[in-house]
């Protein structure tokens, strides 16, 4: 369900891009900024300059009516249109002219092709003659000698480099990394080492070449030969790095060895053939530049292109059965895909060839780019799935590596770029690997879902990585297309034509929407994951620190969504040319007004957020705010609801909270004291307290709540008639009342059992006379004593309330 929606989204965005591209492609005014000088831009420029004097206008009219001037202008405009490669300078005359111009070009090209086809048998002799005229056999051989020597220099330097780095490389390859971070580091280091070698080779070979002076043609020849070698090596190194055809552990793409090996071989073969073809065409074009062997050169380049395409098609159809064999679960969809993709790629290659032959370079590139956007996205997604699958597996054992995930997304990002930078054939090749990747991964993902209940932390970045990849590919494809049509996105949106502006608007909107989408997906999946991991407290359990996140996150999500929508809307409006400054100003004024009006409300909300961030209280905790105390029952966005232990409910706005005391955090210490007569055995009391402490701890109701059990602190102070013994214990918040109750009770019982009595207030009245006192005197003495006692002890303070 989700997948199909995602696919739909892909198709929609791609359709947008395609429409966008078609617009640029078909509208010559948009494509060729250089030609804007001739056409619709000119009036705009004129409008800005001061109006010309009537004399000037008359002179201009006179000139324009002159036939020779008109002819000159005409010839100038046609020659300039011939100069620009794609001939889109017909901007001023519009689409129809442009089309007919193109048809003319194609017709000319076809006639050229026909001529060179007729002369095909004579081509070798033509070429040979041209070659002879440029350089003798000896010279050719000598050039080869030079090339060989440069290659030796390059390889010598590379060998030297390898000797110094081989130890590192071997270590990287032999020691299998288990953690994701380790794997990533190893891959990056390996890439650096490998490509460093290639770089040293190129520097060595090209450097020696450049340090000699060469006659023109030898220069071209030697350079081309060197370039062949270097680019083939580049392709092979990149393919080697990604595919690691022999060592499974180093492979970065989700392929089995049976696929990776032939795929690598094909990539190397295709790269070789393609570069040799290109170099040959270039050499012969250079050779035929001035002679009449033009047709022969044309024939050669067409042949080279045809051979490359043919090989590409052979490769596709050779790889297909291999991939089909290796697909583990041949589902219905897979079967259909495995029939669809090779055909699709074949048609694409043939179209590209046909367009290339008739010299419609921009059309060819357009076809290739648009045709490859989907396969590339799918392949990259496959790679990302694979990487996440790997990291899931590796991160299951060691927990707590969360820093490297963004980097991982970047690694997968580099894949499409690398693939695109390889020669075009290999790029087209890779989609053929799809059925395999697709077939392996969903199965794996399902397994994952089964045995990992909580969403893994890495899984969060999965949709983000996929979106990001798609984003980068789409933007990259757009830019490639624009550059192939000779346009420039920036100059395009600045141009004054309607279509140019439309293109600019669409590009802006697209970018804004894509970026917003990316941010939204990331934030949403992050928030949803946190919420999914939050388990509400069961029954009477104290809520954990996640409880406040459960309050905050939905709020944050809504805020973010509103923010993104507003930003995108504003961007869209501003790119459509609507002045958003008044809107923003209006919104600002409104905001200020509301802010003043609802100052208290805003204060409540903001300080509530900060209290939540501070984690000052949670639901279920016993707090004291000013005079009010009680258990936190609920929080709203504005206020806090606290229930007093006697049942009253206090609603306190967050803004009113200046300081807050929380009685339910971590631990509480309870100190108890009691009075005993001076003749009591303190050691005995200590013993009794220790015993009772042990008993309390064994109690199954509140025992676990005791952090440090009851212990005697000895005599705390001496008073007039007794001494004060202190005991204390440490408990979890909330458990202390019950423990205190039980502790007092047990102490009393134990004291009674061991004959210790609590001190009672008594006043000894010493009567000096020896006379027997009568009752009235006794009473008055007792009254006086009572007064003395009360005045000494003072009124006893009330015991603190117990909730």
């Amino acid at each position, binding site marked *: 369900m989700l997948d199909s929606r995602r696919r739909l989204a892909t198709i929609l965005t791609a359709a947008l891009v395609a429409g966008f591209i078609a617009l640029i492609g078909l509208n010559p005014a948009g494509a060729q900024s250089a030609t804007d000088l001739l056409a619709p831009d000119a009036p705009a420029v004129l409008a800005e300059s001061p109006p010309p004097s009537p004399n000037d206008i008359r002179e201009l009219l006179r000139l324009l009516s002159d036939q020779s001037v008109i002819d000159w202008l005409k010839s100038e405009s046609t020659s300039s249109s011939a100069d620009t490669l794609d001939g889109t300078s017909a901007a001023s005359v519009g689409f129809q002219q442009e089309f007919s111009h193109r048809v003319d070009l194609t017709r000319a090209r076809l006639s050229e092709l026909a001529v060179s086809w007729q002369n095909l048998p004579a081509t070798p002799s033509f070429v040979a003659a041209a070659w002879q005229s440029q350089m003798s056999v000896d010279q050719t051989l000598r050039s080869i000698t*030079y090339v060989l020597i440069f290659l030796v220099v390059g390889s010598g330097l590379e060998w030297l480099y390898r000797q110094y780095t081989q130890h590192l490389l071997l270590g990287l390859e032999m020691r299998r990394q288990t953690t994701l971070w380790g794997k990533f580091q190893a891959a990056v280091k390996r890439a650096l080492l490998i490509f460093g070698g290639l770089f040293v080779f190129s520097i060595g070979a090209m450097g020696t070449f450049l340090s000699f002076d060469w006659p023109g043609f030898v220069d071209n020849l030697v350079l081309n030969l060197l370039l062949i070698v270097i680019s083939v090596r580049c392709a092979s190194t990149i393919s080697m790095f990604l595919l690691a055809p022999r060592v499974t552990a180093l492979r970065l793409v989700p392929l089995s060895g049976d696929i990776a090996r032939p795929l690598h071989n094909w990539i190397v073969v295709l790269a070789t053939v393609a570069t040799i073809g290109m170099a040959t065409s270039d050499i012969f074009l250079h050779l035929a530049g001035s002679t009449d062997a033009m047709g022969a050169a044309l024939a050669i380049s067409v042949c080279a292109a045809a051979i490359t395409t043919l090989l590409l098609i052979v490769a596709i159809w050779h790889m297909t059965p291999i991939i089909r064999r290796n697909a583990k679960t041949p589902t219905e969809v897979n079967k259909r895909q495995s029939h669809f993709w090779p055909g699709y790629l074949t048609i694409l290659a043939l179209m590209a060839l046909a367009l290339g032959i008739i010299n419609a370079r921009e059309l060819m590139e357009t076809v290739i780019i648009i045709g490859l956007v989907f396969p590339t996205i799918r392949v990259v997604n496959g790679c990302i799935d694979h990487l996440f699958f790997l990291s899931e597996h590796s991160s299951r054992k060691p927990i707590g590596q969360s820093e490297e995930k963004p980097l991982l997304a970047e690694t997968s990002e580099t894949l499409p770029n690398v693939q695109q930078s390889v020669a075009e054939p290999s790029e087209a090749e890779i989609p053929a690997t799809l059925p395999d990747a697709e077939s392996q991964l969903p199965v794996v993902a399902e397994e994952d879902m089964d045995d990992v209940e909580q969403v893994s932390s890495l899984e969060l970045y999965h949709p983000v990585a996929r979106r990001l990849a798609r984003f980068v590919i789409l933007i990259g494809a757009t830019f490639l297309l624009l550059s192939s049509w000779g346009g420039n996105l920036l100059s395009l949106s600045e141009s004054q034509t309607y279509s140019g502006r439309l293109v600019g608007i669409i590009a802006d909107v697209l970018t804004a929407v894509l970026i917003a989408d990316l941010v939204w997906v990331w934030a949403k999946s992050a928030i949803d994951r946190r919420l999914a991991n939050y388990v509400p407290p069961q029954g009477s359990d104290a809520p954990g620190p996640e409880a406040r996140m459960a309050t905050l996150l939905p709020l944050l999500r809504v805020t973010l969504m509103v923010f993104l929508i507003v930003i995108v809307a504003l961007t869209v409006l501003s790119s459509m040319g609507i002045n958003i400054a008044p809107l923003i100003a209006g919104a600002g004024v409104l905001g200020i007004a509301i802010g003043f009006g609802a100052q208290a409300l805003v204060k409540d909300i903001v300080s509530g957020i900060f209290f939540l961030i501070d984690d000052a209280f949670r639901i279920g905790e016993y707090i004291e705010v000013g005079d009010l105390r009680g258990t936190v029952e609920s929080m709203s966005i504005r206020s806090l609801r606290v229930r007093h232990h006697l049942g009253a409910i206090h609603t306190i706005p967050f803004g009113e909270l200046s300081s807050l005391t929380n009685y339910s955090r971590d631990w509480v210490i309870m100190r108890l004291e009691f009075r005993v007569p001076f003749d009591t055995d303190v050691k005995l009391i200590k013993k009794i307290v220790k015993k009772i402490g042990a008993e309390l701890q064994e109690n199954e109701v509140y025992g676990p709540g005791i952090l440090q059990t009851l212990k005697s602190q000895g005599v705390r102070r001496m008073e007039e008639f007794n001494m004060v013994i202190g005991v204390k214990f440490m408990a979890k918040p909330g458990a202390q009342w019950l423990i205190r109750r039980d502790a007092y009770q047990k102490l009393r019982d134990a004291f009674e059992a061991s004959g210790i009595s609590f001190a009672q207030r008594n006043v000894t009245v010493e009567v000096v006379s020896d006379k027997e006192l009568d009752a009235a005197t006794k009473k008055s003495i007792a009254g006086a004593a009572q007064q003395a006692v009360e005045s000494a002890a003072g009124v006893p303070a009330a015991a603190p309330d117990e909730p």
Partner: protein
Amino acid sequence: MVRNLRMLSGTVLLIFVTAHLLNMAFGLLSLEAVETARRFLTVPWSLLPLSLLLMAAMLVHGFLGLFSLYKRNTLRMSGYDRVQLISGLLIIPLLASHIVGIAAAKNLFGFDPTYRIILTYFWLDAPLEGLRQVFVVVIAWIHGCIGMFSWMRLKIWWHRVSWFIYPLVVAVPVLALLGFVEAGKEVIAERTLAITQQMDAGTGDAPQLSAAEEVAQQEANAAAAEVNREKLAFSKRIMWSIIFIFAFLLALTLLARAIRLRKAPDAITFIRYMKGPEINMHVGKSLLEISRLHDLPHANLCRGRGRCGTCRVRVIEASPALPAAGEIEQQTLDRLDCGPGIRLACQVSPLAGTLAIERIVPPDITPADLYSPNQSDGVALTQWSAEVSDA
């Protein structure tokens, strides 16, 4: 014995090649410098004791190479070994024309083969030969260096000097080839200058000789050319016969090897690697070769020559018992002070039956680790073996 002989002859050849290449490197200065250096670097090798030594080393080394090819159990080998073998086989056919040419110059044509003459020949008269020279320089140098390295890198001093030797290894052929290019350019420039001068002179001095003189001179030239051509054909024949003899010997070696392998018993051995796969394999290959055939990482610093002992394995179970250690293997095992049950994978070939082994040395060991078992690398080493024994 064979090992040492191969090493010795190879060293002699490599020294010669080095001297020769260094001589060519003077071309970066000027052609004159090359000629001056030639008197000290190249000419002594054509004098009697040295030339005999060179000849003997060449023959001995060639035959030992063929012999080692004969002894090979499998042709799927490591990259270095493959390069070593192929380059060794290529040297003779590529170098034959050069050797014969120099020898012929001296003995048949009776002139001193100076660098100027040879370079003119290579760059102007026969550029294909020049191309071939570049190939042969590279190939011979690679061959020699691989051989030297696999011997030297086990020495205790190696990791101290290797950092200075590596640049030299690259510098010698690179400088020689650049010298070759520079000197070649000088030669080409001389020739073009000569041609233009001749053209200038040809217009003025043509009619000085009488007709008869001209005819006589032409005849003399023709006769000299005829003699030269015969001599040239003769040296060509010698060159080709050398190549054919070599090809014949090579074919003979391969044939003998095929017969030897055919004769080997056709039985299966079952090998269990601790912390590795289980393998079924035809007998007749060494353990190291089996590891390589299955892409299993297995340390072997000396490339299977029984010198380093890094390929050693602990035999955990063997039925039937492995054949007793040979002389080379025993020497290395004694030197490393290995207990019983430790064998060198490169020397021992499992018999039909079952075998369980454990690789002891981590596959990414470097020569520097050989002599510092107690340092940080040693820790990694023991760690690796601990991992191995865990599994």
